[in-house]
């Protein structure tokens, strides 16, 4: 299974980016073989609005079934849900730490957005 994690850099040791729509990068973690790949999110980092909606579509086309991030707004959450992607909110530490926690079943899925848009 593929898991998208918002990342502030291009390494598994980068901190989890607390923003979803305007995250710097998305780490795509493959739970089968324990590997990470990174996708640049510059397009949405600079978007005036609709960043969450567009980022959600990018995460979906990357084939992720789960998203792990710090905070998630209402439009992003609605879009992710429509794409059938489960969301984990409140992740901290490095991308690698988040991935390990997820693999060990120490994370739970959110049922709704936790912040307003443009927080």
């Amino acid at each position, binding site marked *: 299974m593929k898991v998208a994690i918002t990342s502030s850099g291009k390494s598994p040791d980068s901190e989890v980016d607390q923003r979803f729509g305007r995250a710097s990068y998305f780490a795509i973690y493959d739970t089968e073989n324990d590997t990470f790949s990174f996708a640049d999110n510059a397009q949405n980092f600079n978007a005036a609005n609709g960043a969450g*909606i567009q980022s959600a*579509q990018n995460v979906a086309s990357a084939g992720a079934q789960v998203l792990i991030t710090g905070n998630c707004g209402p439009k992003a959450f609605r879009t992710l849900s*429509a*794409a059938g992607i489960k969301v984990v909110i409140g992740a901290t530490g490095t991308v690698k730490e988040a991935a390990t926690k997820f693999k060990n079943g120490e994370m739970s899925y959110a049922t709704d957005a936790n912040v307003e848009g443009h927080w």
Partner: protein
Amino acid sequence: MIKIVVGSGKGGTGKTTVSLGLSLSLAENKMPVQYIDCDVEEPNAHLFFKEAEFQKRDVEVLVPEIDKAQCNFCEECAKFCAYNALAIFPNTALVFNEMCHSCGGCKIVCPQGAISEVKRKIGEIHTAIANNKVQISYGKLNVGETQSPPLIRAVKKEIADKNIAIIDAPPGTACPFVETIRHGDFCLLVTEPTPFGLHDLKTAVEVVSLIGVPFGVLINRSDIGDSSVEEFCSNEKIPVLMKIPNDRNIAVAYSNGMPITEADPKYKLEFMELHRKIYERVGNHKR
């Protein structure tokens, strides 16, 4: 005849005070005046026309509606949309109405013909002819609505060519302000002689210059603060067309719903003089 936009950048500098003073002075001199309140998020000029009976009508915009039976989820519409108002996934199509700028592009690019446009109410226009012959129109945006420019455009359509339109602009210098000053003949920037007034005046000057509307400055509460606004105007060769000193009586009258020209009738002449100066400058610009 002539469209004068009263703007500021900074909020609370006296746009409505000046717009009212100018409108009422012109009306008293038997000139055909229309007051257009484009501050659609918080219109308040109508509060000064207590006797007027307003007629209202809805303003709607077009947003896409996707027929899921015809949609094949090809994503062409979402790729086209510059505002990310659409999200398409296998078997799901989402429309975010509040993001939509009503361009109609998604309907054109849809290869399946699955998109139609439906009306969505964003606000109202209220219009009245006040007892002193000023026709006033104001827009009232629905609470929670983010797209004010379509409503501002609709309010501006109320302007009749034969009239002098005094257009009360929203504060700030983003989309709502730009929409308000577009096609204006002149922009009067109301400011105050404080660091805040100067800062926001500068951004307003940048925007108005970019749009290419001739402009001048009115300094309100001109005897407070410092001389930095006057120095800025003099350095940039921006005409200071009128000054209104700080006067508690004007403020008290305003808070009771009484315009400046009633609080101190000497301003009627000053506003006529202001109009003459603006008229002259617009004439020179058009020539």
